[in-house]
């Protein structure tokens, strides 16, 4: 070689703190310490894994991620390495495959996943895993999202050679109130065990038996009853751990998943809602390393039954007389009636109770409504609980931060409204998305004393029963919008199903009402969608400057510094 390149690739990479790795013949650069599996997956070379999970410690036991690896030949003492014209050393391939999950990349390393060694290793491992597998996919809940199924289809041999008796293990075992176990389907990746130990810190799961009789089970006298237990169902790559709630309800390939956020607490856990037609079947966590990692609490996960419950209000309800029952009506008639009735109320005798469960867009419209009516007694219902030290925030409202920003309300004025209702100084009450008989502490008797009670809600409650007019709103699964979580991150809600019955999104109800009440401000009445309202808000509120529906993205965006942190995320960051 006449001229050496000024700088070899290895030096260039080292300057960036990276290393050069050849994957299936192509050179890439990765930060030092990247796991081979992550490196391969990041450049589109799929490495199948059962036991490896980026959030858990490495077990390296499934042997599915075996790849062929090579390094430059070891030099004799005193020899200098030689480089080819591209500036790389030749790779000497190892005769033994290595696991991609436990090993990290190194300078001038070569990885091959398309060679004979790797292909045969994968095929062998899959064949072994299937020997004692019951092959009951037709009745298995995991079918369709089963790693064993997918990998067998991608890398398996297609035929089986095992003709002996299978090892018999426990089936349909109850591990806890929400999780079922089928030990025969288990591939013993031990993700569930590691999750309970490392993330939850409750070591209730373990392996018993030796050799082929290995089985995951609970320790004697314990059960898997943690509020995070259902995450093991998501973690399980096969159908060994199944959710008692979702068991035998629906084949997963019929389900549509919609990325959205959870509304049970201020954390704003990122979730996927799995729906078919107009029915919600399950909720699973969606990875967001800044909010909920890969997990969610069971209590939040299972709180979706109200969406399709018979208690949903599907048409506007109107009480024509104080003593008359509520009767279904149409939107036009109802809204006109409401406008007529509201015009009769003196603004000083009207109070509005909004909800921090509403999206920013709804809060914005609620503010417009209040301004149009000239109402000043206006607040939200605070909701406090206990912080569980994991993901559940003590703020049980999903959008308190938004309410603070948009309405500048924190619930401090609620006592005055409650008192006003009690002593009769408030004659009319507008309740937006709350059951005021509960957290707001206004008893149903007091509500009955009011002249006028307008309620916007998605489900029946003591408040809607006392209402003169009920405007049917929608649940979080049926609407678009944004919320700001306790840590100041604005996140998007996506519509998973269409509004049930004649229910309408709250923002559009309030927009129309405001318009009918005589508002002519184009910034309110011209908004055709929550996305447009967001753009209006971006003009008005400093923290939201420059925001649009598109640039919030699926992971959300931090717009406020609230100083609040999520304990589980802090722990995860500290581990790194």
């Amino acid at each position, binding site marked *: 070689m006449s001229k050496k390149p000024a700088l070899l690739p290895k030096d260039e990479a080292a300057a960036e703190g990276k290393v050069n790795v050849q994957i299936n013949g192509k050179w890439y650069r990765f930060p030092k310490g990247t796991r081979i599996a992550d490196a391969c997956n990041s450049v589109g070379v799929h490495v199948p894994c059962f036991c490896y999970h980026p959030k858990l410690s490495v077990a390296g*036991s499934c042997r599915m991620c075996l790849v062929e690896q090579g390094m430059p030949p070891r030099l004799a003492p005193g020899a200098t390495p030689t480089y080819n014209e591209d500036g790389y050393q030749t790779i000497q391939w190892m005769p033994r495959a290595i696991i991609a999950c436990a090993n990290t990349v190194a300078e001038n390393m070569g990885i091959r996943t398309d060679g004979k060694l790797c292909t045969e290793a994968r095929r062998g*491992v899959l064949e072994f895993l299937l020997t004692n597998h019951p092959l009951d996919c037709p009745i298995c809940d995991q079918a369709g999202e089963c790693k064993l199924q997918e990998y067998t289809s991608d890398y398996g041999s297609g035929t089986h050679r095992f003709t*002996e*008796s*299978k090892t018999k293990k426990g089936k349909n075992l109850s591990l806890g109130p929400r999780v079922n176990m089928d030990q025969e389907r288990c591939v013993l990746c031990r993700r569930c065990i590691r999750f309970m130990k490392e993330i939850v810190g409750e070591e209730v799961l373990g392996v018993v038996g030796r*050799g082929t009789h290995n089985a995951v089970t609970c320790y004697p006298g314990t059960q898997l009853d943690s509020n995070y237990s259902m995450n093991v169902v998501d973690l399980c790559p096969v159908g060994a751990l199944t959710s008692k709630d979702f068991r035998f309800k629906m084949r997963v390939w019929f389900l549509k998943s919609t990325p959205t956020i959870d509304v049970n607490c201020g954390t704003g856990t990122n979730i996927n809602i799995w729906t078919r037609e107009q029915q919600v079947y399950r909720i699973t966590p969606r990875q967001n390393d800044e909010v909920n990692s890969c997990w969610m609490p069971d209590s939040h996960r299972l709180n979706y039954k109200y969406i399709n419950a018979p208690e949903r209000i599907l048409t506007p309800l109107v009480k024509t007389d104080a003593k008359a029952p509520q009767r279904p009506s149409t939107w036009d008639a109802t809204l006109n009636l409401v406008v007529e009735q509201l015009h009769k109320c003196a603004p000083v005798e009207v109070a509005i109770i909004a909800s921090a469960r509403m999206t920013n867009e709804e809060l914005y419209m609620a503010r417009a409504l209040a301004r149009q009516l000239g109402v000043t007694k206006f607040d939200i219902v605070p909701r406090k609980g206990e912080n569980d030290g994991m993901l559940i925030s003590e703020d049980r409202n999903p959008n308190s931060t938004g309410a603070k920003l948009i309405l500048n309300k924190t619930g401090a004025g609620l006592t005055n409204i409650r008192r006003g209702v009690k002593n009769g100084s408030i004659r009319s009450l507008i309740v937006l998305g709350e059951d005021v008989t509960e957290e707001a502490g206004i008893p149903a008797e007091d509500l009955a004393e009011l002249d006028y009670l307008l309620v916007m809600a998605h489900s029946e409650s003591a408040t809607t029963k006392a209402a003169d007019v009920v405007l049917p709103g929608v649940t979080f699964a049926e609407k678009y919008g944004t919320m700001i979580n306790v840590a100041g991150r604005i996140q998007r809600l996506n519509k998973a199903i269409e509004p049930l019955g004649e229910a309408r999104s709250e923002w559009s109800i309030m927009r129309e009402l405001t318009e009918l009440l005589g508002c002519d401000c184009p910034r309110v009445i011209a908004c055709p969608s929550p996305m447009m309202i967001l753009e209006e808000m971006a003009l008005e509120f400093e923290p939201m400057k420059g925001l649009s529906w598109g640039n919030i993205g699926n992971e959300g965006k931090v717009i406020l510094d609230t100083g609040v942190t999520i304990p589980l995320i802090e722990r995860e960051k500290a581990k790194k």
Partner: protein
Amino acid sequence: MSDITYKPGKEPHPRETRRIFRNIDREGYDPSIKCYIKDGGYKTLKKVLAMEPAAVIDEVKKSGLRGRGGAGFPTGVKWTFIPKGNTKPVYLVCNCDESEPGTFKDRFIVHQDPHQLIEGMIIACYAVQAHYAVIYMREEFPEGARIMQTALDEAKAKGYLGENIMKSGFDLKIVLHRGAGAYICGEETGLINSIEGARPYPRIKPPFFPAAIGLYGCPTIVNNVESLCQVRQVMMMGGEAYAAEGAQRSPGTRIIGVSGDVKRPGYYEIISGSITYGELLYDLCGGPRVGRKFKAIIPGGASAKVMRCDEVLKGRNPDGSVRNMTIFDVPLDLDSIAQHGSMSGSGGVIVMDDTRSMPKMLNNLNRFFAWESCGQCSPCREGNPWMLKLSTRICNGQGSPEDVDLLKDVADNICGRTVCAFGEACSWPTQAFTTKFRDEFLALTKPINALKPHSPEAAEARKFLTRED
């Protein structure tokens, strides 16, 4: 040593050199510390404690001593793998989980000469500056554990253990830990997990190399019982003198345990490489039993690949020319047999004569490995019972010729793909037996068996698959 007399029938063969086994089955010798000190015990320790720890490691490195647990890794080199600038405590673990079928050397040391091991351990601990050591003893040595505990107590009472050993300022505590009867606990990381109270699942390497991240995450040296006794021997003789004796790449003596079809099975301590397998079996062990012929040898514990006695091996003369030889011409050291595709391992030689059925022998080994697989990684957990089921079926005359190939294939799929060396240990026998004694396997099979159901489930399923015309 003319003054040593052995119990009747236990006298060493003239070609033996008893060093580690010097006191085994010796007339008038008991495992007490009195007896050991009278015989010159703990003198080497005194010498070592006056040296620098690094000098001890150098001496062991110089000796070329290789581990006697089976893998034959140089002991001194292993000791230097403790990370430089380490601030964590260092632990030494004595692997006394001798469970390889066919190996029975450590049990004699533990039962009859425990202080030799203790002295070796103190020396090793001093070299690596460990102040806490564990003897991991297999469950099957209840008497050995009692003797060892007594010996540890005696050594402590005499000031060889505890604080400020022999006024050198060196502290050491040795504890005895009993296993619960699992073969996998002999794997060093499995053993460490077992001591920690976890399931003895071997750990993945990298990153869990014991010398860097071992017991409780601290650097840990795991040595075999015989290796530690050899350490004492090295320090007694001096590294160079030790290295001068025996095979160049595996100096010192080796303890060979011969079991199976020979006239005099038992232990033999020989200078490494000084005799061949033929000399061992015919001279030391007295040859085959009357009227029989040697058929096969497993040269290094159950997991080593079996060697046919009539197999023609290519040996190399000193001048470089190739000559034909048999297993009987292979010298007994660590490396010679490895050139012929097997391994000398832990020195357990299992001999089979012409009355033995090789498929049954393999089936027996497979039963052992299927039971002892820890179940952590997929190939070993699922492959071993499969191999067992196949070999059982072949032995019962229900196999087809294809099953023999399948058996070999299953073994190939395990080998090299597991977390620990158990994958090799369990697949090598099957690979070797089915290749080298294929005719014997095929003789037990019938082609028609390929069409028959092999399990009650398959028989049941067949009912629904048969067409009724």
